[in-house]
């Protein structure tokens, strides 16, 4: 059972996390600028029709798998981590809070606004322009949050925690 929980669970958490944050970085480091250039030469439809919907599908569901696997990994220590009850759980607690904020950001802000941008939800041109700005800033915020989140996730275990935080 421990193998399933810590072996498979952690593997699943990291794999889906790589897909989630990898696609987040793709959107921000690659697609955002590519889209501007594609709009200038009239080829943006290729990205918005064929690439973005697929990338968003894997992006938002990878976020679900990552978050659920993370909660499963924390198990009965979830309150120690989220409420910072135990000193050793402070780093993973900070990582878990940042990951949870990012997860909520995906499903409550980014995805509903992307639905309007991609025409999957009804929206006027003004609403689409506003949705584009909101989704862009929410996505950029997730890039900002991902940096300390990955730092705390990777420095929260045993040997690493002692080396980085001295306790």
């Amino acid at each position, binding site marked *: 059972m421990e193998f399933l929980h810590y072996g498979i669970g952690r593997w699943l958490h990291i794999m889906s996390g790589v897909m989630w944050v990898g696609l987040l970085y793709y959107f921000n480091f690659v697609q955002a600028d590519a889209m501007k250039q594609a709009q200038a030469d009239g080829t943006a439809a290729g990205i918005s029709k064929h690439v973005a919907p697929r990338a968003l599908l894997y992006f938002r569901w990878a976020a679900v798998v990552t978050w659920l696997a993370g909660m499963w990994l924390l198990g009965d220590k979830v309150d120690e981590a989220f409420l910072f009850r135990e000193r050793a759980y402070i780093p993973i607690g900070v990582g878990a809070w940042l990951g949870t904020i990012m997860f909520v950001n995906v499903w409550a802000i980014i995805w509903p606004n992307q639905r309007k941008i991609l025409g999957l939800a009804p929206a006027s041109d003004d609403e689409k322009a506003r949705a584009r700005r909101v989704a862009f800033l929410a996505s*950029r915020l997730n*890039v900002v949050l*991902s940096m300390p989140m990955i*730092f705390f996730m990777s420095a929260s275990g045993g040997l690493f925690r002692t080396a*980085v935080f*001295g306790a």
Partner: protein
Amino acid sequence: MKNPLDSLAGTVLCGLALTAVLFYLVRTLMGG
């Protein structure tokens, strides 16, 4: 004032700054 999140460099700098602030905060809280 320009929003730092409008540029990739500004976004990465914000991420680094937040990481540094949280790191020192947590390190202090843990007594390290």
